[in-house]
């Protein structure tokens, strides 16, 4: 009898585990989709305020985004820096660190790329691009390493320091663009156009999609590789789970802080490289002012997983391309894109709450039925 009881408990346990696994993968796919739908519904209500039919607007948005090869390529082009800033937040998030300063690291990387490019007229394109690539990654990495250092050395609040460092980066950028780096014409706060040999070549001819996209995908794979296939990544994730336990296990958490922030900052810095050398070909004051915040949204929507971030960034890219065309062709102002992004993020957070709620409810029920079996 005892043996039978044990057996039934074992089977019940196995079934439960299997259910849990299926449950998790189900939520992993279902909850982002649900969140996006909820976010679109919320923003649709806002469109009604302007007397616009949300269904028509969304239909047009979708139609514009996928209208022709140029627009489809643009989705990938727009998602390129978003993948990188999303990775910047997501990578640090895996170590339970908050890099809120991707915006600043992006600007620092962009500055490094543009300075590098402006000085490399006539250099062989491969070398020039490599130099810009290294310059922006190093600049972003060092800028962020400082944040990690203040946390490691002074136990400073990394959230606060990374937030403040963004505004300092903006001030430095504005100073340089209005002063030493101002275009030769001296008219607008922007730099000169960088020489053509430093442009990232197009991936598909006659579109804006450039090789930077492949770089971003490669970086996502590298992030995945570091986090799940290396000892360093293992340590990073242990620190993320429990800092105290990590210290007891002999992990130098302070070193991890600095390393994680350097890598995270390098990702954001590279977004500056792809935007300068691939997209804008010059540095304009205050460009892409929301890219850091959008990266946070993308990382959350993508569950801080490199592949999830890739997909979430593509979605945001499509929203941007379709959204921009919508605002040009209808009464809907451009701020609707921010509203959609904000609502989607809130919906993701609410779906986490819902998941937990359902999970505890299920396990309570399962516990009851399991007790019934053993009695």
């Amino acid at each position, binding site marked *: 009898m005892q043996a039978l009881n044990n057996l039934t408990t074992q089977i019940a346990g196995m079934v439960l585990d299997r259910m849990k696994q299926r449950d998790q993968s189900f939520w992993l796919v279902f909850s982002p989709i649900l969140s996006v739908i909820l976010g679109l519904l919320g923003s649709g209500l806002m469109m009604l305020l302007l007397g616009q039919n949300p269904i028509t607007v969304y239909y047009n948005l979708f139609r514009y985004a996928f209208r022709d090869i140029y627009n489809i390529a643009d989705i990938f082009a727009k998602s390129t820096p978003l993948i990188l800033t999303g990775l910047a937040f997501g990578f640090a998030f895996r170590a339970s660190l908050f890099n*809120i300063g991707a915006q600043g690291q992006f600007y620092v990387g962009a500055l490094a790329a543009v300075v590098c490019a402006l000085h490399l007229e006539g250099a062989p394109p491969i070398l020039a691009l490599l130099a810009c690539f290294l310059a922006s990654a190093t600049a972003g990495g060092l800028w962020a390493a400082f944040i990690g250092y203040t946390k490691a050395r002074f136990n400073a609040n990394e959230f606060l*320091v990374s937030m403040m460092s963004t505004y300092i980066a903006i001030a430095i950028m504005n100073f340089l663009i209005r002063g030493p780096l101002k275009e030769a014409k001296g008219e607008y706060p922007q730099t000169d156009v960088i020489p053509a040999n430093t442009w990232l070549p197009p991936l598909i001819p006659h579109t804006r999609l450039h090789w930077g996209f492949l770089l971003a995908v490669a970086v996502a794979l590298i992030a995945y590789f570091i986090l799940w296939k290396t000892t360093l990544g293992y340590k990073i994730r242990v620190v993320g789970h429990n800092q105290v336990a990590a210290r007891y296990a002999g992990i130098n958490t302070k070193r991890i802080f600095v390393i994680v922030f350097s890598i995270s900052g390098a990702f954001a810095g590279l977004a500056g490289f792809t935007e300068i050398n691939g997209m804008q070909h010059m540095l304009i004051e205050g460009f892409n002012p929301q890219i850091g915040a959008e990266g946070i949204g993308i990382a959350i929507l993508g569950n801080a997983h490199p592949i999830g971030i890739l997909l979430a960034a593509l979605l945001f890219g499509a929203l941007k391309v379709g959204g921009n065309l919508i605002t040009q062709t209808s009464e809907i102002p451009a701020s609707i894109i921010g509203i959609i992004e904000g609502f989607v*993020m809130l919906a993701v957070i609410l779906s986490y709450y819902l998941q937990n709620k359902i999970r505890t409810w299920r396990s309570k029920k399962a516990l009851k039925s399991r007790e019934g079996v053993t009695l």
Partner: protein
Amino acid sequence: MNIFTGLLGSALRMSTPLMLGALAEVFVERTGVMNIAIEGIFLIGAWAGFVGAYLSGNLLVGFLAAAIIGMAYGAVYGLITVKFKQHQIVTGTAMNILALGLTSYLYRVLFGAPLLPLTVEPLMDLPIPMLSKIPLIGKALFSQNALTYLAILLMPVGYWVLFRTRVGLIIRSTGENPEAVDAAGINVERVRFLAVLASSALDGVAGAFYSIGFLGMFTSGIIGGRGWIAFALCFLGNWNPVGVMLGALIFGLADALSVVFLTSGIKIVPHEFLIALPYILTIIATISRRRFNVPAYLGKPYVKESG
């Protein structure tokens, strides 16, 4: 008017919203919740204040609207972080992005796209008889607008409430030892939620100071990180209204200096450096100060043990 008086006066004026926002943050963080949505609520407050004042022609209505709508926006944040126990930094970031979109969208819904920015008459200075005639400091200290007087008054009041009253004791205990508060029969979540509401209302008023207390108009970049300064001041002031007031005055001075330098054309340091100064100061202060009085349960949701 000499430059000292002018500088002191405008330092006080610029520190007004910082004092209000940081005081609000002190109270909410003392209960254990960081109001990360502060930047967004500042912006919402600036928007609501302008809309209220413009439509009614009355600044008081504007400030009232800012408080109410700021509180409503904060209620969403409180619901998600306190009641649903979701991540405060993530939720706050989402609320801040949303605020940026919502305010400029709703401005467009209400007013279309006017060629010239719409304006209201901002708060007037209310010179206090006699006192404002004191040489050198009189005009700076006693010829301010109503909100600045209110902010300065609120700091000692805030100190008194926090450290000398029962409400203050409950607030502080909720952040330091929620179990004990719970054991005393006080609902921890309710205390925290109410604190989020109160702080958001004050944040809304602080934000409205930029639109209708000072500039007389609304633009989407009007806050531009000043909510974060108030947030940082709460840390730097060591979760104490006195420290907050000191910090706010220093940052107000930095703000005032950058305006004076810009308008008078004095070029000692680049204008951008002065803009960045408060942020640099914040980092220096964060790393140079070793002992912070961080509320023990700051940022941690309270999970009640079920019997």
